């Protein structure tokens, strides 16, 4: 195995992530029967916790919406709890909000039932649920509980002292010196015992906090090595949601495995390779799974540099994850791009303007960021501005987009229907998740524009890589945005 840049292969632990990095909210555009909906789900920080739900109907006539959380598959998908009615906004009859308890980590779906003038429709939204952090106690509550705690401890000590000093005295009898001594002794002993109880309680609290921290999501780890032009990716389980004892095996319904990956629009893994720090070269590749947890790929020709690797995978239960690694690559002159591979190069974001809305592609085609009603709508035109007559689906979709924050804290792979994986969508719809979309195409003429339902998760500068296909050519446009 050839070492990279004369050194050992580099492997950095993945940042906190799931199917995206630093972008936990779920966006979905879809149809509930006759009603076109735009759904936003904000998963909770802790599990159990409350997910916030916002639904906008693009169709008129919606009178009621109900939401119910269900496991994506398995025993928990069989029985549904009572659905919660969403509240309609007083100022906008098409905007509904609600909240749902997510009780366990795992692959969930939120099933929306819509009633209105056009009848009833149902839309299932895949929601991966996992704890992202624990909450710190704010100062006010901490102070209040400390005062009350101090009062309870000192009060109990005083009660113990009084019980020993006075409880057995007849009415009106004053405590004798022996009673006073007994009271003092009981106070001291009581204080020691209670301090021990408080110490034990604190240790218990810490132990619970540590136990909880083990349940905070840890993405699968990935190490990358290069042998010639062959990239090898090795996954490693860091110990999250495992069932490695008798009790967990019986009670943990959702567990994470590495041998249960399913294709998402035709590929087990979607790998974005993005050069750092300028984000000026991007490759969308598809390594093959050689054995459980091991992927390999003959890299195409790649310019040298430090790259971040974002690898999207989906488990059989619909739970998506993004693994992250970083590696130095030497200049590679090997195979050309083939199949669903795509690549692009652009100015580093540091020297590029966020005001640019048109990106000229290597073949003269142009991709334009429309910035209209839909914030992330893009159009592909020929060099003369005409509409390409050979628009094609790229891996079953009009387009793919990757939203990358320039500081590396956000990576989101978004489709025209939203941030959910196609495999999870199919599972939520009751279809087998591994169905291959790459061969699917439409007889009708495809539009030359695509939009992506997404919102930037945090302020900062972002680079957006947008991919559309005409004929056999996959075009990748590069845009910058400041949020």
């Amino acid at each position, binding site marked *: 195995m050839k070492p990279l840049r004369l050194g050992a292969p580099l492997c950095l632990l993945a940042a906190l992530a799931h199917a995206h990095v630093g972008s936990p909210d779920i966006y979905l555009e879809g149809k509930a029967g006759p009603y076109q909906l735009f759904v936003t789900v904000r998963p*909770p920080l*802790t*599990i*159990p*916790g409350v997910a916030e739900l916002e639904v906008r109907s693009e169709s008129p006539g919606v009178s009621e919406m109900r939401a*119910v*959380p*269900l*496991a994506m598959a398995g*025993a*928990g*998908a*069989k*029985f*549904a*709890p*009572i659905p*919660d009615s969403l509240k309609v906004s007083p100022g906008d009859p098409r905007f509904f909000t609600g909240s749902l*308890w997510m*009780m*366990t980590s*795992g692959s*969930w779906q939120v099933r929306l039932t819509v009633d209105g003038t056009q009848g009833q429709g149902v839309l299932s939204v895949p929601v991966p649920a996992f*704890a992202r952090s*624990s*909450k*710190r*106690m704010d100062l006010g*509550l901490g102070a209040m*509980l400390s005062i*009350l*705690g101090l*009062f*309870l401890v000192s*009060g*109990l000590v*005083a*009660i113990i002292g*009084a*019980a020993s*000093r*006075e*409880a*057995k*005295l007849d*009415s*009106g009898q004053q405590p004798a010196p022996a009673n006073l001594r007994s009271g003092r002794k009981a106070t001291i002993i009581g204080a020691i015992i209670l301090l021990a109880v408080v110490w034990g*309680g604190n240790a*218990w*609290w810490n132990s*619970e*906090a540590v136990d*909880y921290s083990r349940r905070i999501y840890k993405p699968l780890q990935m190490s990358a090595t290069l042998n010639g032009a062959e990239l090898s990716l090795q996954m490693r389980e860091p110990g999250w949601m495992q069932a490695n004892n*008798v*009790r967990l*095996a*019986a*009670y*943990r*319904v959702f567990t994470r495995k590495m041998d249960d990956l399913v294709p998402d629009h035709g590929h087990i893994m979607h790998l974005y390779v993005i050069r750092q720090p300028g984000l000026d070269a991007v490759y969308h590749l598809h390594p093959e799974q050689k054995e459980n947890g091991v992927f390999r790929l003959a890299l195409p020709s790649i310019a040298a540099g430090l790259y971040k690797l974002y690898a999207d995978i989906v488990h059989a239960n619909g739970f998506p994850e993004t693994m992250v690694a970083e590696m130095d690559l030497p200049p590679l002159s090997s195979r050309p791009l083939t199949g669903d591979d795509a690549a692009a190069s652009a100015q580093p974001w540091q020297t590029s303007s966020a005001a640019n809305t048109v990106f000229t592609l290597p073949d003269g085609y142009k991709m334009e960021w429309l910035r209209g009603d839909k914030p992330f709508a893009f159009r592909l035109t020929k060099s003369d501005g005409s509409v390409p007559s050979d628009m094609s689906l790229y891996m079953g979709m009009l387009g793919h987009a990757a939203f990358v924050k320039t500081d590396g804290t956000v990576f989101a792979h978004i489709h025209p229907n939203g941030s959910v994986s196609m495999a999870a969508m199919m599972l939520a719809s009751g279809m087998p998740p591994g169905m291959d979309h790459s061969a699917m195409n439409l007889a009708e003429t495809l539009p030359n524009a695509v939009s992506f339902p997404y919102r930037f998760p945090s302020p900062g500068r972002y680079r957006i890589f947008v991919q559309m296909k005409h004929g056999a050519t996959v075009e990748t446009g590069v845009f910058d945005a400041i949020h």
Partner: protein
Amino acid sequence: MATIPAQSGNLASFPQTRVHASEKTAAIPWYIWCATVAATSATIGGYWDISWHESIGRDTFWTPAHMAIYLCGVLAGIAFGYLILHTTFAKSSPLAASSVHIFGFRAPLGAFIASWGGIAMLTSAPFDNWWHDAYGIDVKIVSPPHILLIAGVYGVVIGTLVLLAGHMNRSESSHAAGNRLILYINGIMLVQIMILLMESTERIYLHSLLPYIVTAALPPIVLALSSRLTGYRFAATSVTAFYMLFRLGLILLLPLFPAEPKLGPVYQQVTHFIPPDFPLLLIVPAFALDLLWQRTKTWNPWKLATLSGFVWVSLFLAVQWPFATFLMSPASRNWFFGTAYFFYALPPTSFMARNVFYPSSLTPVEFSLGILCAVLIGTLAFRWGIARGEWLGKIKR
């Protein structure tokens, strides 16, 4: 509970005094009734809340079950706050001479204990809320904020007991009604203790060591205290019978009321409120202890506690072990034994859903040593209960 027998020897001189006192009934003051209502409310609320979580799931804070629990804290806070303030500041308070002094206030000792319980309960509410926000952990009873809540309830119950004992010890009249109330409050206490032990005494664990350890640690205190304080011949039987009837009542009543899960995932179909497990057969060793205690009145307390610990653990083990086998069998899956009722989020792969005992990792020798430990723990618990019963028999304030 009809008669209060005479005692002799060094067991408890105070019950004799009560029995031979005049037949005039001592009126139980309002604040004791108030505390009794508070303790009852928390007990019903506690079991109702557990059933609510098992049938409907987490809900708003304002569920009737929560209200029943926190009514206890509010009642205790208001009633005993008033009692403490009145006794401290009213010049004509009849309790002034029978009070203890704490932080410049004065009132009967039980009022301070019950007030402490009320404040602890109310303190647990924001703590518990934060706990769920921070850790999200809810589906277990034994957590730090829940323990604070349970300690608060115990404070109210123990405070009530202390108030009642003090009141009776000051009274010259008959204590029949008071003793019945003491047994009732101890019944409440046992029922409350079994909430704390609920998770460790589920039927899947009844072929393991843990249930025999925990049932040796806490229930004996209540039983020894009840017997010693009231002098009643069947005090332990009465208290454990109350526990059995309370839990049986829940098994018979709760499934009559409709309830459906509001949360997912739902692994078990639930259409009605889920009751707790069938009660442990504590009544069997308790009855044996009552018979034993009737015949060992002159024994040294340590000797008595040692024998009681042995009888308690061995007899409970002898009856509960085979009964647990029955509870795992299809014959118990009916409206009376209630073993077909499952928490809505109970995974079908769980031991409980499969009616399989949790496997014990202990060898027979280790298990025997563990049972010996349980006997030792039971001995200490009985000794502590005897001591607390005697102390309660002497308090005047």
